[in-house]
């Protein structure tokens, strides 16, 4: 039932511990939001899942398999990744950007780009445009399409809407919920915006100082915050 599992995960950067003994089993086909203050280790945790960060201790399991750091490429192709600042390749068109996961894996699917553009509410005419010609919100939709191209079972998102305005963010939240409905996958979203987390997530993982403060369903966490820190975090938003 667990698509992604972290067991005793620890990470130290130059003597500074970013993560400490993190053990979490993310539920399959749910949206989990990781929240916490800046510097709490959220991004480090997320990047440990697709191996962009190598743990100092502990294990990472994806689809029941530990990450094989010597040939991690095939595992990464099963994990979608959307970042703040979208990371679209500026020298490739929208179509080329979206279909590049297929090119790498050797799987072509000519109609898929059109399907994804339609799903993302982007006009078909965008296919030949370059990312620089699109707005911030549109670029992030393209990045989402790219992440979904191979139908990965896991989708990671690192502060995906951080640089967007409130209204655009609102539209994209709706899109995320649609993704959950249409695409059956396990989504893990890092955000410092607690209201965003509450709106999107089924489960909440609260981090502070690299340690798990609380992990549980959204409603459970809201109703019974595990400690004063969690309480503070939630109260600031809910009021």
């Amino acid at each position: 039932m667990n698509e992604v599992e972290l067991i005793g995960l620890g990470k130290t950067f130059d003597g500074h511990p970013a993560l400490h003994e993190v053990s979490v089993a993310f539920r399959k086909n749910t949206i989990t939001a990781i929240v916490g203050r800046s510097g709490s280790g959220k991004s480090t945790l997320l990047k440990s899942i697709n191996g962009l960060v190598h743990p100092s201790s502990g294990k990472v399991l994806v689809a029941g398999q530990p990450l094989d750091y010597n040939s991690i490429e095939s595992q990464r192709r099963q994990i979608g990744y959307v970042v703040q600042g979208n990371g679209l390749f500026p020298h490739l068109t929208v179509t080329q950007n979206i279909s590049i996961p297929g090119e790498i894996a050797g799987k072509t699917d000519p109609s898929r780009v059109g399907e994804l553009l339609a799903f993302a509410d982007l006009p078909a005419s965008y296919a030949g445009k370059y990312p620089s010609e699109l707005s911030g919100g549109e670029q992030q939709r393209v990045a989402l399409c790219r992440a979904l191209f191979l139908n990965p079972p896991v989708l990671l998102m690192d502060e995906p809407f951080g640089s967007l305005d409130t209204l655009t963010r609102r539209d994209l939240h709706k899109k995320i919920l649609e993704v959950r409905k249409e695409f059956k996958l396990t989504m893990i979203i890092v955000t410092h915006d607690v209201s965003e987390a509450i709106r999107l997530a089924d489960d909440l993982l609260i981090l502070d100082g690299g340690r798990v403060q609380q992990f549980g369903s959204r409603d459970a966490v809201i109703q019974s915050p595990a400690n004063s820190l969690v309480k503070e975090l939630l109260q600031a938003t809910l009021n």
Partner: protein
Amino acid sequence: MSLFSKDKIVIRVGAKHFTEGYILSEMLSQILESKGFVVERKFNLGGTLVCFEALRKGEIDIYPEYTGTITREILRSDNLSLLDSMGLKISKPYGFNNTYALVVKPGQIKTISDLKDHAELKAGISYEFLKRQDGWDALAKVYGLPQDPVGLEHGLAYQALLDDKIGVTDCYSTDGEISVNNLVMLEDDKGFFPEYEAVSFYRNDPGSRIADEIDKLTGSISEAEMSAMNAEAIYGKKSFREIASDFLVKKNIIRNKLSGSNNDFLQKITQHLFLTFIALLIAIGVAVPLGIFLYWNPKLANVFLYVAGLLQTIPSIALLAIMIPLLGIGSLPAIVALFLYAILPILRNTVNGFRNVDPLLKEVAASLGMSRRQQLRFVEWPLALPTIVTGIRIAAVINVGTATLAAFIGAGGLGEYIVTGLALNNTQMILKGAVPAAVLALLIELIFELIERRATPAHLRKR
């Protein structure tokens, strides 16, 4: 060894880079050509040492030399049979004695001994004479001369004398400038200078059979005739080729004037571009893959970049000269030197081009499950390419300019006009080499700008 190609034998004729040297070498060349030999002219070899080395190593077959230079400077001995063990021979003399002399403007001073009483006179001496064993130091000792000489290019010394920038300079007794400018040769009253009879200095290769042909010059040139030919080269309109040709025809040594090749200029530009681009292509082939390797292995990067940078600090003419003992003269050492110069800009721009790709994009590429090769191919290479092409452009422009110096080591190219022009103090000839070289550099800049535009990824091009 001269090369055999079917029944045509190739003889390589060298020349020292001064007027008389060119004329005599041109005469030898034309005599051999009139007898069916194929002659490769390797003029512009510099002075005695470079010519002799080239002869000894077999890179040239013959060049005109002087007996005094052979005994005093090359062999350091009067025993000419030493040449036999080196496989070298001397022909019978051409008929004139071109000795070293000191020359001044007309006035009080008549002999070299007179210089002792004129310590205020500034002496400008040619580099070759300063360094020779029978040169200034020995002369000053014998005569007790007080002057402390300054080194000068022989071709520039006369102008300096006429402009009173110096008071005395060394000269060759058959220099054309002496009579034309009414200068006075100082009498060698202590008999310091030996005889410098002009002869052919050549390799005793059994197969080459040139001895009979070059004997045609024996006793055929007098001092006055040589002096007149030198004057004509400097002050007249004729080329060396024509002067040599006219003399040989007049003396019935050859039948007809040989037609000069008018594609001389074209040949030189072609050679220039050849040197430039061969070196560039090899440099690209080495530096770009090496750059990628260093990008993947950053710990080694600093060492390699440092070494490449060090190569750049070596002055170009020095690097070319260092090639001579290693690789001889000609195109090969020039290409190697140019190759070494081209490496740094290309290597550095390759490494930096890759390093400067947005790290976020590299992270995303990795997250998509791209192998290192795929990251290179889809993301890093297209984004680094404009920077790499800029590096190649810089190397190309450097090479075109440095290739002008290749002429100093006998590699040809537009630099030949510059070297010859310098030796003869002929500005027009210098420009004939310098201007096209500059134009070539500009053209290369323009062409590369076009290439850079094509290499720029679409999103960065101005629409």
